[in-house]
């Protein structure tokens, strides 16, 4: 256990150093995040003219929703899928098969290092801008649960992206399919619009897909009430459901990883 932690720390540290050279790329988020948010502010300002709530959300809650979505995005962002498919396509995956460490551990440690760097250069500055400039209400109703939920979201987004990357072992040249999938993932996660805006039938489907656990659920936990497809859950229940979903996805990812490795060692992709 101690050894595993030392490994994760070392890889995370090296990744941190690797990306520190690209700080300016991360700092672009200081512009991109607030600009995207500003667009939402105007959209909803217009939409809320003469209305108290839309779909059960007040204007302030709506802004909090998009504010939290943006923060969760910067906290949990990774490109595990892109990295992995690149390793498979270039044949460099073999250098990982030759090291006594499952690649997914390596990738997760990389994400930890990368996001630690982002904490200082993306998350905190954007958070400050939101609170000070836009005066968004960004204090979670139940801080403890919100933190747990965002950590679970961190894992969920990693595992889904990693699974998308794993498909490269079977579909070497399917970058297009993967990108379509990731876009649909964002839509189904509630990045563009709270899922409660979708038609009833779609909501029911979305409830059973893993994507809501990346963005929609943690955001609702942050705001303090959860509702999807007519199902209302208390904060504790929602986080419990999320934890369950993370466990199931983890099992799926490990199975898929094993299958991918079997294919790699069988065919040599």
């Amino acid at each position, binding site marked *: 256990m101690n050894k595993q932690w030392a490994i994760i720390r070392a890889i995370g540290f090296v990744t941190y150093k690797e990306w520190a050279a*690209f700080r*300016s*790329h991360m700092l*672009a*988020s200081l*512009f*991109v995040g607030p*600009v*995207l948010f500003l*667009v939402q502010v*105007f*959209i909803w*300002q*217009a*939409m*809320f*003219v003469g*209305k108290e709530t*839309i*779909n059960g959300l007040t204007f302030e809650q709506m802004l909090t929703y998009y504010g939290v979505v943006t923060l969760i995005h910067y906290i949990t962002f990774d490109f595990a899928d892109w990295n992995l498919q690149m390793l498979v396509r270039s044949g460099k995956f073999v250098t990982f098969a030759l090291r006594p460490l499952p690649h997914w551990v390596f990738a997760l440690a990389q994400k930890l290092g990368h996001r630690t760097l982002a904490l200082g250069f993306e998350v905190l500055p954007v958070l400050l801008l939101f609170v000070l400039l836009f005066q968004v209400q960004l204090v979670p109703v139940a801080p403890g649960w919100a933190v747990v939920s965002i950590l679970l979201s961190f894992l969920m987004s990693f595992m889904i992206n990693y699974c998308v990357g794993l498909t490269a072992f079977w579909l070497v*040249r*399917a970058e*297009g*399919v993967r*990108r*379509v999938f990731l*876009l*649909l993932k964002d*839509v189904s996660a509630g990045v*563009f*619009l709270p899922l409660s*805006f*979708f*038609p009833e039938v779609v909501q029911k489907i979305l409830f059973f897909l893993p994507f809501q656990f990346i963005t929609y659920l943690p955001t609702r936990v942050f705001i303090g009430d959860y509702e999807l497809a007519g199902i209302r859950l208390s904060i504790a229940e929602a986080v419990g459901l999320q934890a369950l979903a993370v466990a199931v996805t983890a099992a799926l990812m490990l199975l898929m990883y094993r299958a991918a490795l079997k294919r790699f060692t069988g065919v040599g992709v």
Partner: protein
Amino acid sequence: MRVKLAEMMAYRSHFILSVLLLIVGDLVVPLVTLLVYRSGASFPGWTLHEALLVQAVFVLAKGIAFPFFFGMVGTTLSQVREGTFDLLLLRPRPVMFMSMLSGFDPDDFGRLVSGSVLFAFAMQGIVIPGGAAWVQFSLLFIASIAILFSMSLFLSGILFRWVGSSRVFDIFDAVSGFGMYPGTIFSKALQNVFTYILPIGLIAFVPASALLGREGWGSLWTLASAAALVLLGIVYWNRMLKNYTSAGG
């Protein structure tokens, strides 16, 4: 260009997929607009079809400007990073033209499909305008494409210095967010900025308004400002290129 087309034919399945991706991507914002209107909210003074018309014009403008111009952002991004941009400098043709050519991306024509579908859908809920509105629209549409061209030049130019940052695409997406909605939702000050200083409103909002009969002939002055912006873009791009070459890559 012919090579690119041949390449495209060889990877037809790849081509179909990336067109599909672009269509899905272009339809996300209209989908969100549709869902919001369905929930009973609306942009004050704009019906669903009118709001979608703005977004349709935006996608159509991209469908024409992106295949020809926007690819150069991607090529400068990768070629300057890998140091292969110098190869373009060796060709006996204008560098800007060559980098546009090497960035030519037929996949982007796929946006014309999503744009047309969206446009047709929006027009169904709109009183068909007269000939004058169409003439205004066509002229303003040219200005729209010119502005996208100049934006490509600015983004591509930045990449000579800000080596390898794919964040320029995020920046473009963020800024263009202002152009996909009826301009009237923004504060008066921002509306002025998007018309006179950073003319994002001219990409879709102004041409769409013309088609809806909401703009007079006076709006055609934007053709001049679009031309000025293109000129500025060309000067900027060439200056960045000069800096890049004199720094020795």
